């Protein structure tokens, strides 16, 4: 059985900037793995390389034995992904969005109807199925996206900051869902900067300035720093990454989102 995720010396440069440098780790099948780090640490870039969105500048990575560079199609066929911002078509209904997904993953026509129904009930959105997604709350969209990512029965699920912008109820519901999925043997790989969420992971990697600076189970990491006995993962995190504020310039994506929130014309 190949490892769920394996990367070795993974590096990505954007022009002069080394966003990710020499990152290596392994995620076993069925694990919940958390990639932690402050903003701009390189978490999303790493995730994008693992999910074939970006090509690595050097190093190798594989998902369930499929090489991300040579066999991107193989990687894509066994994984599911939920992006940080919703990747839905706002003007289409929940049902139509799921139907597009079925087409993208070549789910046979005869099975599509049943899979969509199952996804809608999983997301508790049966009654909102015919409503355009633009009328949904953040929590409803996230539920829909998670249900969609599971529709083609992936073996590895990638989640990029899955709980950002959710209220406590939605966050709790999401965690319960993730726990239930793990019970079924799914490998979950997530990025987060909420430390209390990372406590639940089997293993975490802490990234900063494009490099992995700590790797292990939450208990191991807490024990690694000498001193007081009861330390939260948050204290460990701040100890490792420093306390200065991380300011980032707004990316084109952030600017686009801000424009959309202001009611930008001709976009959605």
């Amino acid at each position: 059985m190949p490892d769920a995720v394996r990367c070795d010396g993974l590096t990505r440069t954007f022009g002069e900037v080394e966003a990710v440098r020499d990152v290596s780790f392994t995620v076993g099948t069925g694990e919940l793995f958390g990639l932690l780090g402050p903003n701009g640490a390189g978490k999303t870039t790493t995730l994008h390389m693992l999910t074939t969105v970006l090509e690595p500048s050097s190093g190798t990575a594989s998902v369930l034995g499929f090489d991300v560079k040579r066999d991107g199609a193989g990687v894509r066929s066994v994984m599911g992904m939920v992006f940080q911002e919703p990747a839905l078509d706002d003007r289409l209904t929940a049902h139509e969005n799921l139907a597009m997904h079925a087409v993208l993953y070549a789910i046979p026509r005869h099975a599509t109807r049943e899979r969509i129904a199952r996804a809608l009930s999983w997301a508790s959105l049966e009654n909102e199925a015919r409503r355009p997604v633009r009328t949904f709350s953040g929590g409803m969209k996230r539920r829909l996206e998670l249900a969609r990512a599971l529709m083609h029965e992936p073996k590895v699920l990638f989640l990029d900051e899955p709980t950002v912008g959710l209220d406590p109820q939605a966050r709790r519901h999401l965690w319960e869902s993730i726990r239930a999925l793990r019970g079924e043997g799914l490998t979950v790989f997530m990025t987060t900067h909420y430390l209390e969420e990372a406590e639940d992971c089997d293993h975490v990697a802490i990234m900063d300035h494009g490099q992995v600076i700590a790797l292990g189970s939450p208990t191991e990491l807490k024990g690694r720093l000498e001193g007081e006995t009861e330390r939260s993962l948050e204290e460990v995190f701040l100890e490792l990454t420093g306390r200065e504020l991380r300011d980032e310039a707004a990316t084109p994506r952030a600017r686009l989102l801000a424009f959309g929130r202001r009611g930008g014309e001709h976009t959605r």
Partner: protein
Amino acid sequence: MSAQASASAPTRVGAAPRSPLDPRVAASFWRRELLRYWRDRSQIFGGFSRTVLWLIILGFGLGAALREIEGYSYAQYILPGVVTLNVLFASLQSAIAIVWDREVGLLREVVVSPAPMFSVALGKVLGGATVAMAQGTIPLLFAPIIGVQLSVTKVLLAWCVMLSMGVLLTSFGVIIAARMRTFEGFGSISNGIIQPLYFLSGAIFPIRGIIGGVGFLAIPDALRLQLQKYGIYSIGSGWVVQLPIWLRVLVYANPVSYELDLLRDVLLGFRQLIMAADLGVALGLPLIATAVAARAMRRMYKR
């Protein structure tokens, strides 16, 4: 679980590659464009308001001063131009939506899915072109008001030209949008792409031809006879126009000019350019543009 994964596990190779042409994917992205268009009534409203402004207000307004162009009223002359303007807007609007779609929309879903991007691009371009045909049909509804007789054949041929124009312009828009990092307003697209293509296509002025007289040159017969007594002969109320050379070069360089010329031939039976050139552009260029657009969409993420 180890920090240094050194072993090189044998890499699996599998998952039969899907053919770049997946009709189901292309069809669902085509349908998506139509659904989005149908649910955005502001676009349909824009099609009507542009038609009223250009065809009726400008057509009759400028038509009052400029009597005719080669025997056609000014409103009749610009009818194919207004169709083209609607096609331009619809195509570019549909294409530019991929900037949003790529960063925070459904297109991100496509990138992490095993679906072939070529088919997605094909569906996108054909969908954009179909919406453009619908928008381009709006000015044809006004044809009776300006005295243009339409027939089934004329409308079918006009749709063929609109399809060609829509595919060309949506692809062109996709090629531009694939390079845009961010998008904060349609104004720059409108001023920077749509209007130059429109004004330099011979849509609102002829490349050359006999123009019917401007108001003050339409001399009453009594005055004409009186002037003749003094040996002054007016040459009717028309003159031959020829665009300045630099402007002519720009019009000839604009592919939209040829598509529009073909459309004007179909709708009015009036052509200013060589038929072979018109057909060459209308049949060949959209295919090339689609191929380039599909390639641009495939490479969009791997920057």
